[in-house]
């Protein structure tokens, strides 16, 4: 199953390099969103709390603009049937999830670097806590976005449905990740952030389990 999932990822990776379906929209959104925030903030000094919140706002909307492509592009091009004919649902989901995890990590690393370079108040004081919250948050974001993308790819109004469906599902993850980012900016120790870290780990495990259970039904009809 792992080799088949990797083959799906490999196919998607090469397809993305040729078509630039997701990369272009993600890159444009990151640049536009951060520019708008910078213009809006101007010379004002913004607090750490606000910077942490805005950091995840950009991540959330960037994910909304690009991560759905992995399934939507298959459906729009009519290649879903081809994939159904060559792979089991679990192999397809694993491959698509791997692709989205890597895409989310690349995208969010760029966002974090831009934030660090452009916002004075974005100074990380606890790097290990930031690392854990960043990794766990990104994995949760990728899992949720992938299964939601699979659901909405079968629907008519894809563009509208994706953020509408994502918002309630991602809300617990975003709120906890914002809190963890805030902790890492004000230097809170990992020990004191255990509760929030446990929430994000639980979220990731629950979403992953539910996604694998649901995907068979979503993918088939």
């Amino acid at each position, binding site marked *: 199953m792992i*080799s*088949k999932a990797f*083959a*799906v990822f*490999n*196919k998607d990776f*090469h*397809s993305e390099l*040729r*078509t630039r379906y997701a990369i272009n929209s993600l890159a444009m959104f990151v640049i536009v969103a951060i520019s708008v925030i910078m213009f809006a903030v101007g010379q004002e000094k913004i607090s750490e709390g606000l910077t942490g919140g805005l950091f995840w706002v950009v991540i959330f909307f960037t994910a909304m603009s690009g991560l759905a492509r992995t399934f939507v592009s298959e459906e729009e*091009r*009519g*290649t879903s*049937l*081809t*994939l*159904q*004919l*060559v*792979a*089991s*649902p*679990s*192999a397809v989901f694993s*491959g698509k999830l791997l692709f989205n995890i890597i895409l989310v990590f690349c995208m969010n690393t760029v966002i974090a670097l831009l934030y660090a370079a452009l916002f004075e108040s974005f100074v990380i004081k606890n790097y290990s806590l930031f690392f854990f919250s960043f990794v766990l948050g990104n994995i949760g974001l990728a899992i949720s976005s992938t299964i939601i993308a699979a659901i909405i790819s079968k629907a008519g109004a894809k563009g509208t449905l994706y953020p509408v469906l994502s918002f309630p599902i991602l809300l617990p993850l975003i709120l906890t990740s914002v809190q963890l980012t805030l902790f890492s900016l004000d230097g809170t120790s990992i020990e004191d952030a255990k509760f929030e870290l446990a929430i994000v780990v639980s979220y990731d495990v629950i979403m992953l389990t539910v996604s694998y259970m649901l995907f068979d039904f979503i993918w*088939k*009809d």
Partner: protein
Amino acid sequence: MSTYSVEAIKINKTFGRRLVFNDINFRLDNPGIFGISGPNGSGKSTLVKIIAGLLSSTKGKITHKNSEKEIIPEKLHNHIGFVSPYLVLYEEFSAWENLNYLSKIRGITFDKDYAKELLERFLLYNRRNDLVKTYSSGMKQRIKFIFALIHHPELLIFDEPTSNLDDEGRELVYNIINDKSKENILIIASNDKSDLDLCTEVLDLKVSNKDF
């Protein structure tokens, strides 16, 4: 010789309140060409999708067996070669890349010699490195047959196999159908008289409750 069998018991399909077909029964366990005909909207494509495991029936059961062992749905795709007008290959890849990527996703080694043989047989070998989006509709139809045959499936399902093909393409497809039907079960869904003439038995979907 194929030891593959497909059995459909009381297959029924509805979309919402609309009944597409009802009480379809058949058993195919010997190599040969079996046809499914019927007017537009009678459910030919729906029935072949159900047989291929791409769509669930509303009622009834399809059983695929290989050497008397039932094939689980997760593994069914490796036993079926499927061609249909709504099957689309990746247009951003060449024919060769499509066959390579899709074989790897299937979990089989990409057999370059067999791929070359099929590409030559379908007169596409010289265009193997061109992107599929540059192909004509007839060439796209021919590459679908290579995709359906590359993994040596026991069951071949061809939905409107000669659509978009010129006389030369039709001839190629009919030769393949005749060759493969000696060892494999082949199901053809079509309205074309010359396609159906190849079949030993035909299930007509406009006549309800008819069996093979």
